[in-house]
């Protein structure tokens, strides 16, 4: 076990650890460009050069392994000089593009230059020109001038996407990234190259020029497009979601997400229903939430026995919503036919994409099962003799026949978010929140429970399905179930459902918690940063 000193602080690490990793363990920051923990080490940017007593010249910290008795300096004149030199070199041919570059604001080059150099330019010559705005693939644009040749994207294609579409051509200052002849950067994970590009060389055509990134407000959430449940960041501006970005979660998705999930947010931007509607005298009218709920309760009671009621639950419910819905189904609606809706399965692969395209099937099933609610799959939906039906969610793959059968039911209560066919069919429509308007948890197919957080303010008077379930419970006389926020619901859920036992928002942590595993000790929501003066 080698013991070394970094900036005077001693640490003992596993053999084979790089200096960078050791420094990270100590919380010492070493700037990098080409280093990415999910990729192999290239050590070509030279930004991480540190001074050691074991070599006459500075060593790249990302590559150099620790030695016993090593003394590393990450600061000081020598390292600073190297860093400044590296930055000056990188910036030599960098165009003055910040105003038109989408990366500005989350650009590593900007950060490092500002932090480690902030020296004026000494260049008087013309800069090297390379192709700009070159289309590499359906969603990727390359600006070769901005590229610093860290080759993260090349390595990503080789190692993660396993599609080897990118390479570096030419030599010296003429070097540039390009696709292999005849190939396009069109693998299903291609957009991850944009994320890992430390500068603005690779940009997303989808996001191009839409919003400046420093204006975005972000919330951590979970991608709902398949049961993988990749951890993402929902970036929004002016209360509109602008993009998804994958976030690091070793339990689920490492650093990546698929392009399909990334672009999926667009389909939820239009066609929202912002208020409840009911059908009165054959005409659809807007109403208030309370009135619509009364309507829904009345519809369920008028069915004449729960045998004539059918409920379609959706695997898009959060665990919290599912719990409340489960309580409803177990309590006042006991005996109703419960059908599990959801999207039809699609293709999957062995990287991240899963065939089941619903975010929380496992969670909803587990909770309903634990509460003793029998659930039939969608294919077995039988509405014969049903007088009232409740349909939750828009993402239910009803066949045409099923839709038609649904339309024949006397009272049709729909909880949905969009102005779709289900809204057309509804006699009572209750608008629901989208996943980025909700606080709660999703359980992925492996049983990892992850937080989703509200990224934008809910549209109109939309409420979550759980809220409606709670109100219906109260309408049926079970007033005891009054919760103040999802945290309390989750606590109740954890107390009641065996799978979730011991879980709480506090111990979910950054990466979620796998069902059945002993929960990690609770971590505070935000790590305390010292504001006590030291200088």
């Amino acid at each position, binding site marked *: 076990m080698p013991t070394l000193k970094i900036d005077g602080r001693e640490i003992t690490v596993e053999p084979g650890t790089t200096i960078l990793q050791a420094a990270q363990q100590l919380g010492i920051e070493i700037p990098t460009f080409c280093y990415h923990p999910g990729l192999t080490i290239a050590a070509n940017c030279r930004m991480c050069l540190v001074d050691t007593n074991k070599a006459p010249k500075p060593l790249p910290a990302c590559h150099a392994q620790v030695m016993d008795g090593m003394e590393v300096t990450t600061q000081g004149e020598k390292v600073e000089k190297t860093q400044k030199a590296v930055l000056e070199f990188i910036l030599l041919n960098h*165009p*003055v593009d910040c*105003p038109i570059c989408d990366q500005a604001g989350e650009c590593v080059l900007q950060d490092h230059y500002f932090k480690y150099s902030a020296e004026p330019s000494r260049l008087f010559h*013309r800069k090297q020109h390379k192709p700009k705005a070159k289309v590499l693939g359906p969603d990727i644009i390359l600006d070769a001038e901005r590229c610093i040749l860290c080759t993260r994207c090349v390595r990503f294609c080789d190692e993660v996407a396993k599609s080897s579409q990118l390479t570096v051509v030419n030599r010296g200052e003429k070097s540039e990234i390009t696709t292999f002849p005849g190939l396009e950067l069109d693998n299903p994970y291609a957009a991850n190259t944009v994320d890992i590009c430390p500068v603005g060389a690779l940009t997303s055509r989808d996001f191009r020029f839409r919003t400046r990134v*420093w204006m975005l407000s972000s919330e951590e959430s979970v991608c709902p497009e398949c049961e993988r449940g990749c951890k993402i960041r929902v970036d929004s501006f002016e209360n509109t979601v602008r993009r998804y970005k994958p976030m690091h979660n070793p339990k689920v998705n490492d650093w990546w997400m698929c392009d399909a999930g990334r672009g999926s947010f667009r389909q939820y931007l239009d066609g929202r229903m912002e208020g409840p509607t009911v059908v009165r005298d054959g005409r659809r009218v807007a109403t208030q939430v309370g009135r619509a709920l009364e309507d829904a309760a009345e519809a369920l009671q008028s069915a004449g026995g729960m045998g004539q009621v059918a409920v379609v639950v959706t695997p898009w419910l959060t665990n919290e919503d599912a719990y409340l819905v489960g309580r409803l189904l177990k309590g006042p609606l006991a005996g109703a036919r419960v059908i599990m809706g959801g999207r039809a399965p699609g293709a999957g692969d062995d990287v991240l994409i899963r065939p089941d395209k619903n975010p929380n099937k496992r969670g909803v099933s587990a909770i309903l099962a634990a509460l003793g609610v029998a659930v039939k799959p969608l294919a077995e939906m039988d509405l014969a003799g049903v007088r009232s039906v409740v349909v939750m969610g828009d993402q239910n793959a009803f066949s045409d026949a099923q839709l038609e059968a649904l339309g024949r039911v006397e009272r049709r209560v729909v909880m949905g978010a969009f102005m779709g066919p289900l809204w057309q069919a509804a006699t009572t429509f209750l608008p629901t929140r989208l996943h980025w308007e909700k606080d709660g948890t999703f359980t992925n197919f492996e049983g990892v429970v992850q937080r989703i957080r509200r990224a934008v303010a809910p549209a109109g008077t939309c409420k979550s399905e759980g809220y409606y379930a709670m109100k219906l419970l109260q309408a049926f006389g079970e007033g005891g179930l009054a919760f103040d926020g999802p945290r309390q619901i989750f606590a109740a859920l954890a107390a009641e459902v065996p799978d979730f036992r011991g879980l709480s928002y506090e111990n979910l942590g950054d990466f979620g918690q796998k069902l059945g595993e002993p929960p990690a000790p609770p971590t505070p929501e935000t790590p305390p940063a010292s504001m006590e003066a030291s200088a």
Partner: protein
Amino acid sequence: MATIHVKRPELTFAEKLYIPEVVKGLAVTTRQLVKNVFTRKDITTRQYPEEKRPYPDRFRGRHRLMWDDDKNVRCVACMLCSTACPANCIHIVAGDRGDDKVEKYPVSFEIDLLVCIYCGFCEEACPCDAIRMDSGKHPLPSFSRDKQRIRKVQLLEEGDFSIARRGGRGT
């Protein structure tokens, strides 16, 4: 540096009778009256619409957008002005120009003059010398709020060529 006591005047008996001081005051005001009636020398009022005060060079007036070489908008919609704006009065929608020289341009550029506080941070923040507040014109009143949202076209009317080289494109 010293401390000095301000001297409170002891009023003389005559001053206590009010009259001398009243006369002195009347002398001051009458002097001004006579002077202004006959010479108008001290009158500071400006007859505004006819007679305009010359604004100093640094005066921060209504905004204008500068031109590039082709008299197009010089702005590249980097949004630094709307970022720096403490009042959030600048609204820009960026678009792709499809042009080799600058890819990006503002599809719409609006400034809400009613919200603007004329601090000058936008011209300071502009990395392309595109927005300036040196038009030498103060904001004008209007009868509707909408007229106070000035748009790209209006902003460009006041524009000019800039001697600064275009940002966004290195040499």
